[in-house]
């Protein structure tokens, strides 16, 4: 039976809301397939505003991978703003997809991608607006399977009550494996219903199904053990890793929205994974090993993407783009190729070295040299050893000076506050660094209009990192430390005008910390705060710390745990962590040793150019580092003539 579009009902509401264009769909390269022609129907959602969600690469990649299958269709959905949510509830309009404006509840699988835990309340809104019961136990055979992905899915315990399953790691092959199982199950008449389907998915090791695992607690609130409650379900669920990115050159036809988005450019991922070993960085830990895309595939993706989208800016993405083994050739090749066009290239890289500036210079051949960003992350030499960010003060000052000398006027420096073992003095060193940077910059340029912006984020300990055991810094101490830093910079009369400071208060970090290292009991807090009206928690104008704390007090009232227990408490080696049964490949003992090394201020090299230091991933997952050089040549792409000029006869 075909499912009707809700657009006629929605259309009457659109004149009454802000930025209605975000709800109409019609993106370039969107795929609309006939409903009745397929066996499996997916809807993918990025649970934030359209302008944030539409550029998300994960969703765009899986969207194409799924739509390439004959037996499958995939549509997309994004979070609706509270103005439309209210009207939808009043007029009984359900959560919809953008391709055909069909109700989300009519699909077989509802996949949500979580780059951050702050999207959890938006997930509840979407599930509820879709008419799906918010608790997985209340769902029936006709409700979609709700599956979480993205980095936050490496510990989905806080949302275990609301999702049916989670996928860890690279999604390309995982969504196809899920689709195979679902298609097969449906062709056989769906024997055993929802429960059996989830069991099949879990037994195949494709997904983690929380309800097939029981969690037992000690009286003091710590976890005693997590164990499967069904035969055939694995004790630990492993992440997925795509090997050979050249075989997965997605997205091939990136989605181009009508509405303005936060990234008005086309992105090409040049490698996946990072082994720099920064101890705070969850992305670097859970995406190992490094797998490079070859420069020939990168060139093809850039050329083809520009052709299909009409974008005039390309971003070369990865966790540390300057680390691609052939990045110099890639940058030069692309800069040559697009030299006489209006196309510009960007390489988000924050490496603190001269090579990075050479790259930036190459990519800005034609343009203005406005701003460069570096990420020393830690203010003092000591704290940089703790976090394994191997940059000396001398490196930093020399690098930034080179940038000013090359004509860059503005330098942005990223730091974190609240790192393990940190004292006020470590953060106050940021002021001195900024001072040294401006001083050296003025000397080398002879100008006073060079600037430096110091941008500081609060550190949140994350699962599957050496800092997973660390105590998070309480928000009051974070705020006072940042205030001391700001004062120190202000008091530096001769330099204060050249130094900008940007930071946020420590409160949102505490909620993020609660969610990222939370266990199943935290689900009650999320539900409570959502019922109290929490939405769009990643947006400072919508986020309310007080509401979260009130909700936590109510929801955790009869428990031996509270927000402090989850956030500012240090864990011991013996404690069972909520995500221990979720396998990122990292050896827990190695993580613990790395944590001890951090405390001892001992650094670890990058395994791309030193021998393996046994983090466990490659051995355990059967994967390997894939880096160049490839010894191939990047050929210039052919130039296709215009079809509209008078001279070109058709």
């Amino acid at each position, binding site marked *: 039976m075909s499912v009707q579009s809700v657009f006629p009902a929605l259309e009457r509401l659109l004149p009454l809301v802000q930025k*209605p*264009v975000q709800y109409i769909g*019609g993106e*370039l390269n969107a795929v609309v397939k006939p409903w009745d022609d397929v066996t499996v129907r997916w809807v993918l959602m990025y649970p934030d505003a359209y302008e944030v969600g539409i550029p998300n690469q994960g969703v765009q990649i899986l969207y194409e991978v799924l739509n390439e299958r004959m037996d499958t269709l995939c549509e997309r959905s994004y979070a609706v703003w509270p103005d439309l949510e209210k009207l939808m509830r009043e007029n009984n309009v359900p959560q919809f997809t953008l391709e055909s404006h069909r109700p989300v509840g009519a699909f077989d699988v509802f996949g949500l991608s979580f780059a951050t835990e702050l999207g959890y309340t938006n997930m509840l809104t979407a599930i509820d607006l879709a008419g799906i019961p918010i608790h997985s136990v209340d769902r029936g055979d006709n409700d979609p399977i709700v599956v979480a992905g993205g980095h936050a899915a490496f510990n989905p315990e806080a949302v275990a009550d609301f999702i049916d399953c989670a996928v860890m790691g690279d999604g390309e092959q995982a969504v196809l494996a899920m689709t195979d199982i679902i298609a097969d199950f449906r062709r056989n008449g769906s024997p055993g219903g929802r429960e059996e389907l989830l069991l099949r998915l879990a037994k195949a090791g494709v997904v983690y199904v929380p309800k097939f695992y029981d969690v037992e607690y000690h009286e003091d609130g710590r976890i005693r053990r997590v164990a499967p409650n069904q035969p055939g379900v694995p004790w630990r669920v492993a992440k997925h890793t795509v090997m050979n990115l050249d075989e997965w050159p997605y997205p091939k036809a990136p989605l181009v929205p009508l*509405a*303005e988005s936060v990234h008005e450019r086309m992105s090409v991922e040049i490698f996946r994974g990072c082994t720099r070993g920064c101890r705070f960085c969850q992305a670097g830990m859970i995406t190992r090993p490094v797998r490079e895309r070859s420069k020939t595939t990168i060139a093809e993706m850039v050329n083809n993407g520009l052709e299909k989208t009409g974008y005039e800016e390309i971003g070369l993405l990865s966790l540390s783009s300057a680390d691609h083994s052939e990045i110099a050739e890639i940058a030069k090749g692309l800069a040559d190729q697009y030299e006489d066009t209006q196309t510009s290239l960007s390489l988000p890289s924050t490496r603190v070295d001269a090579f990075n500036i050479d790259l930036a210079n190459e990519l800005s051949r034609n343009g203005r040299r406005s701003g460069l960003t570096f990420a020393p992350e830690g203010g003092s030499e000591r704290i940089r050893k703790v976090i394994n960010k191997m940059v000396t003060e001398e490196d930093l000052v020399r690098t930034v000076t080179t940038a000013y000398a090359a004509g860059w006027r503005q330098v942005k420096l990223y730091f974190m506050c609240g790192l393990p073992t940190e004292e006020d003095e470590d953060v106050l060193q940021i002021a001195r660094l900024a001072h040294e940077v401006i001083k050296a910059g003025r000397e080398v340029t002879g100008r006073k209009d060079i600037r430096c912006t110091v941008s500081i984020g609060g550190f949140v300990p994350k699962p599957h990192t050496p800092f997973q055991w660390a105590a998070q810094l309480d928000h009051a101490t974070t705020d006072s430390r940042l205030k001391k830093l700001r004062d120190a910079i202000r008091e530096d009369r001769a330099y204060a005008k050249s130094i900008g400071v940007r930071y946020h208060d420590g409160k949102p970090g505490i909620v993020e910390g609660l969610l990222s290292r939370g266990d199943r009991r935290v689900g009650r807090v999320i539900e409570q705060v959502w019922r109290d009206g929490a939405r769009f928690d990643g947006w400072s104008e919508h986020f309310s710390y007080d509401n979260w704390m009130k909700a936590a007090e109510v929801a955790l009232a009869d428990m031996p745990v509270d927000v402090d227990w989850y956030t500012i408490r240090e864990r011991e080696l013996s404690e069972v962590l909520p995500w221990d049964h979720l396998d990122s490949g990292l050896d827990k003992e190695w993580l613990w040793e790395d944590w001890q090394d951090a405390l001892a201020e001992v650094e670890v090299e990058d395994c791309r150019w030193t021998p393996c230091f046994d983090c466990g991933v490659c051995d355990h997952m059967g994967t390997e580092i894939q880096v160049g050089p490839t010894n191939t040549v990047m050929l210039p792409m052919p130039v296709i003539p*215009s*079809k*509209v000029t008078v001279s070109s006869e058709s």
Partner: protein
Amino acid sequence: MNRDPGRENIPAVQKLRIQHAKRGPLRFSSHRDFQRAFERALRRARVPMAYSSGFSPHPKISYANAAPTGVASEAEYVEIGVVAPCDPVKLLAVLNDVLPPGLDIVDVVEAVTPDFVARLEASHWQIELPDLSFADLSAAVEKFLSQEEVLVERLTKSGVRTFDARLAVIRAEVFEGPECAILAVVVRHGVPSVRPDDVLAALTKVADLAAMIPPRITRLAQGPLLEDGWSVGDPFALDRATQV
């Protein structure tokens, strides 16, 4: 310090005037949304655009009198400059291949006359009001037309502005539509420009009309006022007549 003047680009050798429509759900796109989509479409169609010189070169495109967000249109106008002569017929076809359905190119002419924007003297709007009767709307319009002046308010960037919505309306007719009453108005362009929602605000004010369901508004035409003083003509007519 080197004061790099930026890039020197080739000047335009030809200008083309383009009429496009904004239809269906695409009426919810804003003017800026259209600009981005149009510029990307020009690149995808490999139209040899002229660019301004300097540090951040922009394609040579001028937009005129965009219809408000949420309002459909059959008659929006854009002028582009190109560095190689283009065939207007081919340009129309190629752009329609790459623009999203709903943002449709209707007509293209080579620009051979000056002062195009000044030729856009008035707009012909069609306003569908789903929960109003023909009789109620007719009575309201009659009342409105009998007034010398109807002051309305609009929130602008510089605060609330009060202006007359009556004088600019040179023609207003009411029709019976399918499950709605239709108001057709011809409004002279001016400063501040009187928009269809201003006309509706004026009707509400004089006749206490209370429309619950948002109206569907379409700009049917914009162009020079013809000799009868109340019909809107084709702004491309002069370019076509002047063509060698």
